[in-house]
């Protein structure tokens, strides 16, 4: 989980992602935001090197062109009706609510719908750390591309001297 915070991982991911984006630009005239997001997720999963369930789930999912991969369907209604039942002899009134939120969490982390609590913790922490890195890396790419717009290409070549 801590590796997502290292500079190295950030460098690997951002350069891999950028290369993947340039490749896809050559094959198709334009990349929609959704396709780009999908690419970003897949490269993230590849960078994880199969060590986590969520990354394997992303790679196993079929590629969808243009449609939203994440399905926001509501969970089964039975979960909500449980809340309406009169609380007779239950010490923990909150349990249904907690279960409901656990279920929501399981839906948010790819591939974790049937995971136990302990494994869910591990997957969630890894997933959150990876997502944070993804956001940082994509921000960095955006900044570099933005800078390319402001200056002429020849100027930039000259300014990048120290490697």
């Amino acid at each position, binding site marked *: 989980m801590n590796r997502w915070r290292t*500079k190295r991982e*950030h*460098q690997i991911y*951002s*350069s891999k992602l*950028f*290369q993947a*984006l*340039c490749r896809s*630009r050559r094959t198709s005239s*334009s*990349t*929609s*935001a*959704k*396709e*780009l*997001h999908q690419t*970003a997720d897949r490269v993230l999963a590849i960078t994880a090197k199969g060590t986590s369930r969520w990354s394997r789930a992303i790679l196993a999912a079929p590629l969808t062109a243009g449609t939203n991969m994440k399905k926001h369907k509501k969970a089964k209604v039975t979960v909500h009706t449980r809340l309406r039942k009169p609380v007779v*002899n*239950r010490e*923990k009134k*909150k*349990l249904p*609510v*907690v*279960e409901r*939120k*656990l279920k*929501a*969490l399981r839906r*948010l*982390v790819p591939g974790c719908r049937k995971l*136990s*609590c*302990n494994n*869910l*913790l591990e997957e*969630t*922490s890894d*997933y*959150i*750390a990876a*997502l*944070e890195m*993804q*956001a940082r890396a*994509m*921000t*960095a790419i*955006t900044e*570099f*591309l*933005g800078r*390319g*717009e402001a200056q002429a*290409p020849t100027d930039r*070549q000259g300014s*990048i001297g120290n*490697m």
Partner: protein
Amino acid sequence: RRSRSKQSSVSSIADDQITDLVSKLQHLIPELRRRRFDKVSTSKVLQETCNYIRSLHREVEDLSDRLSQLLASTDSDSDQAAIIRSLLMQ
């Protein structure tokens, strides 16, 4: 599977498992890290975790949107090597 709820002592998910999960999650969520010494309820921690993941998803969605526009308008092929070098230097 959950029909055992009639007995109050038996819960379908072990309570200490949830407590453990919840206390560790609290450290991951920026919103809750600040309130480390306050007692935060289990459902609140789970709610904040879900909210945080969703906000990260949205952030990446927005970045994807901006990037796709930038890529369309930039001729990045000529600068590709330079950009990659910059990214590896970060």
